[in-house]
């Protein structure tokens, strides 16, 4: 009896469905929770990334030779030059007798710092510029879109080269070069989402009731536009790492002897045929870290864009 009644289309049922649809939260946290429940790829990515972050935090404890990890040359360096992987040095030693494993473990830290600095700063700039462009239309909109297009079209690596010649090597060079180009992508995404939000009736209503522009931007536009942009940012974490390590690999960023994967690989590349382990192990870490972040990002994107999640069947 109950079954039959439930199957009947009833007004209260429709109302419930509508309510349910509205209750589907679209905040970033809610999206993350749903991705966790739904996707095993998210879990794998989450586990990988947490492991990497833990390695970064616990680097001084995990590294058997913490001083090597920081770039100091050990005293008995001459006896330890380019040892192949063994029990004492699981990843072998480099050209100056340092333990590669320690350096790679400390490299997690520089990787995370670079990623965090680049993504968070670009995110802030991009969100700001995108929202301003969408809200204050007219000349500002054209100008900001022009700037976005401009910085989108300059690859980070050539800016890094110019900055390297001006500022010398260092963290600032890599991070600045990446931020200069990277914010434009978030600017673009924010702009696209905010423009449709600005056209919504509730924004008009808020304007009519005399709410100030900044308040509307904060309360209505940014809050609604930020989840997809944040998802984009998570997807990008891996690509930032890939590009940063490429810049460092070419010697355009961090100075030699830094515990950074690209730098370590560069130091090993001349000795590739004699001692391949110097260059091979940091690369594996880059790959695994980028993969972890990208798995998380992909499943989050599926949550934001339901089209990607849709199951379908072929008609033939």
């Amino acid at each position, binding site marked *: 009896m109950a079954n039959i009644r439930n199957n009947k289309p009833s007004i209260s049922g429709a109302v419930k469905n509508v309510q349910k649809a509205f209750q589907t939260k679209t905040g970033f946290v809610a999206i993350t929770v749903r991705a966790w429940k739904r996707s095993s790829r998210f879990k794998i990515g989450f586990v990988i990334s947490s492991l990497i972050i833990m390695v970064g935090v616990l680097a001084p404890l995990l590294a058997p030779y913490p001083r090597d990890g920081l770039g100091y040359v050990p005293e008995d360096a001459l006896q330890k030059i380019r040892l192949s992987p063994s029990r004492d040095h699981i990843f072998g030693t480099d050209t100056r007798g340092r333990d590669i494993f320690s350096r790679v473990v400390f490299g997690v830290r520089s990787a995370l710092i670079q990623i965090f600095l680049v993504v968070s700063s670009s995110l802030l700039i991009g969100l700001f510029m995108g929202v301003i462009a969408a809200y204050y239309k007219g000349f500002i909109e054209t100008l900001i879109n022009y700037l976005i*297009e401009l910085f989108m079209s300059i690859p980070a690596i050539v800016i890094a*080269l*110019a900055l390297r*010649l001006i500022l010398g090597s260092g963290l600032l060079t890599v991070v600045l070069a990446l931020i200069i180009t990277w914010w434009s992508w978030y600017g673009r995404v924010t702009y696209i989402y905010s423009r449709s939000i600005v056209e919504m009736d509730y924004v008009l209503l808020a304007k009519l009731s005399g709410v100030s522009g900044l308040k509307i931007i904060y309360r209505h536009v940014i809050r609604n536009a930020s989840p997809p942009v944040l998802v984009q940012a998570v997807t990008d974490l891996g690509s930032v790492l890939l590009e940063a390590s490429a810049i460092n*690999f070419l010697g355009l960023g961090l100075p030699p002897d830094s515990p950074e994967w690209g730098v370590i690989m560069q130091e090993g590349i001349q000795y590739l045929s004699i001692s*391949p382990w110097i260059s*091979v192990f940091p690369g594996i870490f880059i*790959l695994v870290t980028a993969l972890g972040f990208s798995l998380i990002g*992909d499943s989050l994107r599926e949550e934001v864009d339901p089209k990607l999640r*849709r199951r379908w069947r072929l008609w033939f």
Partner: protein
Amino acid sequence: MPVSLNYIVKRLFWSILVLVGVIIFSYLVIILSPGDPAVKWAGNPRGVNATFAIEAARRELGLDKPLYMQVFDFVAKVLTGDLGISIAYKQPVFTILYSNLAATLELLLCSYIIVLPIGIVLGVYSALHRDELIDDVLQSFGTIMANTPAFWLAAIVFLLLVSAGSPVYGRIDTRLALETGFQSITGFYLLDSILQGNIVIFIDVLVKLIPPALIIGVYPLGLSIRLSRTLMAESLTEDFVRAAVAWGVKRGRIIWKYAFRASIPPLVQVFGLAFAYSLIDAMVVEYAVFGREGLGRLLVDALNYSDFKLAIGLLIVVTAFYLVINTVADVIQALIDPRVRL
């Protein structure tokens, strides 16, 4: 074809405007960054001729004029292809850039011609076998490929090839080129050797070209496997596919002529972006690992000689390349997808 000329002209004008913006930006980088611009422009000269070189650079940049005149002069200079003499090569900057662009472009084109069809076919195959093991395998493969650092893979492949005794270092065997009287005309060695009917050189160039081309192709391969699956998943569920099935159209025709056709425009756009992105991969890999000439060598030399002119020249040329590729991609997209033409 009734393509609105208006759209194309607008797109071109916008791209040129962006290019001018990039040139202005690079000039501001020279002027506003810490340190004397003339010293930077002269490449931090030392020794007897230092003051002379700095004075020359000061005149070249026109630093005694008002700022807007400096910027205007600089833009005019760059657009007419005059960026002074490179410090590292003692030749005009743009001459070096153009002669090296061909090498990188050859690598890049070769890479995409090999990789894209493979990636697209795999992606479509994956979409047709959704929810099967092969789909998961292909998609995971694509994700891993898209996240592999190209220079790391290049190092490993190079190591393997060298230990197998394969001659992969450099772009061409110079001695062989001299013996067979090979001359470069276009800068694209593959094309040149075919034009001259020089089979020995053709094989040599191809053998040296394929490994780096495949490595640069790893990113577009992963991207195309994943993207073409997503796009096919969308278009295969459309009503026109259902209608085609009802009409009794053959399966292969439905897939390639109907469903795939609908996903070409987004593919073109994404690959336009990816192609420009791969230029960076090519620059990283070609010289640092494979010792080929090309833009990557210029990058390293500009750093080693602190050749600021070359660095700025690279910035402008690489950006112009990006703009050209994306404009072309947009125009192609407008040609095949009427919705874009606004």
